[in-house]
């Protein structure tokens, strides 16, 4: 019974990881940007959801009406104002530091605005749950999971099937060539970043439904998310999703024998195993860079 319950919990958790990791994958796989600040924005979105619920009394889910466009715009702004200034040759490395700086700034501002106190959305249905086959599923967790699935599929379709998706990928791989084909690379890259950040808005809302938030919480998320995108194969959205589900499940199951803290190490063990046996990631290949 405990096993089945844990599997369910792992599944639900994995869904959330998948959504968040795919946002990271988007920046990286497509834009070669390591976005350390992703989870900071995640927490920011969660704070906004909490704040609107607390002040205006709207359901956190409704906050997405505001946060998703807001984050999209913020993403476009970040990309157009800051990231474009980095030299292409050192983009990956410098982006780590730049987004790290952004993360610190967001954390500091959150702390300034909302203090370091832990916050939690209190909903009428916070503790509601229903039973299937003897295990219980909390309503809030299910909502978060559904949100994740919708956002994730949308993302996949957008990247693979739309003109925009193509233009975005072209832009990243050879900016000059893309410009010469008539692609407005500035705008496209901006939108790409905006979409990535919009996933953080959705994820943050989902997160706010069932956990506590505090400004420095984003550190807690960076590790597992980074591990997931490496295990899933940097740049592969389906890979990230698969890795997230597997690792989320593993974490949940390992908690039974090992306890919370040690169970978290599964992400890093998986990370190192990936590097040792399949550096390009377990769920998606990458080009050999040599020629």
């Amino acid at each position, binding site marked *: *019974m405990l096993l089945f319950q*844990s599997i369910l919990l792992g599944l639900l*958790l994995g869904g959330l990881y998948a959504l968040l990791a795919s946002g990271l994958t988007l920046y990286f796989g497509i834009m070669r940007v390591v976005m350390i600040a992703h989870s900071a924005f995640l927490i920011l979105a969660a704070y906004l959801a909490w704040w609107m619920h607390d002040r205006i009394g709207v359901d956190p889910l409704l906050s997405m009406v505001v946060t998703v466009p807001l984050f999209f715009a913020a993403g476009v702004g970040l990309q157009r104002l800051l990231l474009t200034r980095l030299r292409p040759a050192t983009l990956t490395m410098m982006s780590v530091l730049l987004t790290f700086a952004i993360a610190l700034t967001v954390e500091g501002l959150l702390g300034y605005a909302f203090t370091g106190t*832990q916050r939690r959305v209190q909903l009428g249905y916070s503790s509601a*749950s229903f039973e299937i086959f003897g295990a219980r599923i909390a309503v809030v967790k299910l909502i978060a999971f559904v949100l994740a699935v919708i956002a994730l599929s949308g993302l996949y379709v957008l990247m693979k099937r739309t003109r925009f998706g193509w233009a975005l990928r072209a832009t990243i791989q050879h900016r000059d060539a893309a410009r010469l084909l008539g692609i407005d690379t500035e705008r496209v890259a901006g939108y790409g970043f905006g979409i990535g950040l919009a996933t953080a808005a959705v994820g943050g809302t989902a997160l706010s439904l069932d956990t*506590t938030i505090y400004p420095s919480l984003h550190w807690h998320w960076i590790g597992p998310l980074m591990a997931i995108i490496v295990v899933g194969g940097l740049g592969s959205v389906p890979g990230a999703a698969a890795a997230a589900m597997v690792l989320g499940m593993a974490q949940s199951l390992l908690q039974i024998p090992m306890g*919370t803290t040690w169970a978290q190490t599964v992400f890093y063990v998986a990370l190192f195993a990936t590097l040792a046996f399949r550096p390009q990631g377990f769920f998606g290949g990458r080009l050999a860079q040599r020629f």
Partner: protein
Amino acid sequence: LGTAGCSGDDQGSSGSSDPIVVGISLPLTGDFSEPGKGVQEGYEAWAKVVNDKGGLLGRQVELKILDDQSNADRVVADYEQLIGKDQVDLVVGPFSTRLVVPSARVAEEYDMLFVEPAGAAKEVFEQGFKNLFYAAPAVANDHYNHLAEHILALPADQRPKTAAYAAMDDPFAQGTAYGLKEKLEAGGVKTVVNEVYPPNTTDFSGIAAKVAAAKADVLVGGSQYQDGVNLIVALQQLGYQPKLAAFSTAPTNPEFAKAIGNKTTGILSPTGYSQDAPYESNKEFVEKFKAQFGKAPEEDQANGYTTGQVVAAAVTAAGCAEQGECQKKLVDWLHSNKVDTVVGPLSWDQTGKPQGAHMIQQWVDNDIKIVLPADVKEADFVYPKPAW
């Protein structure tokens, strides 16, 4: 709190009319910021009460408060600065065991008296500090003493058989839970779950699943605040109903009831302080505190205030308050005397460990009341706990 600059007035000898500067570092941001701010209020309330009465030794009391960002490296630098650069006359402690230990070492090495409001875990008293005094009735491991006695005194058929423990990985939180665990195990209550989680844990569903699956009679949470709430909500989601549930600090928080959907009845918590406690100075404290801050003091505020009271008693008795020789006099006096405070009379052993016990509170009818020990109880002990 606009306080003394960096002038470092070196001749703050007694008898002069210079203020007595008390240096404090507190976690005003970071992990411990909430209780840290509570302690700050306690200190400020104390300084105001003292100053309103004409100060200590005829000198005004001035607080110099730094923020250590809940960071152990910072807290050391802060006390280093307070003692070395700002030349404060006295220092008192920060919040939380994790910060108390390193800062007490700085004070010790500069031969300063170090009374502290929140280093409750037993580790604090194992460092060989000679100048440290914990200004509260009991150390963490003894918080549940009354509860343990009560449970083990229950008739055999009512007595719980199994217990689950979930404690934050923090010396204080673990200290409380394990103090009880030790006693219950000795009394024959079997431990079925024993979980430790890191301070930053936000997802408690895994731990809750284990606790729920074990169907333990007693649940003991070694919690600070939010982790306790999260654990309870996760348990509610899984439909687990213990017969008895006790959490350190969390249930005393004013937000607690709302956070868990008001299903509080029966939840237990130890406390070192009660607003209604009959001690002489307490009435004054509650009154003045309310006037100053517009709310009633909680345990953290009381701890800060108590610390002030202890220091004040020593200063008054020794007749001095500055760095150097004087500090030794203060320390010696505290080692051999008893101090009356808002949490009752306090006295210490050689390691600075206080010699009292905590009371046990319980949520009854949407209010938290003292239920143990029997001689000071405000309400009857509810057992078994109703569903949440």
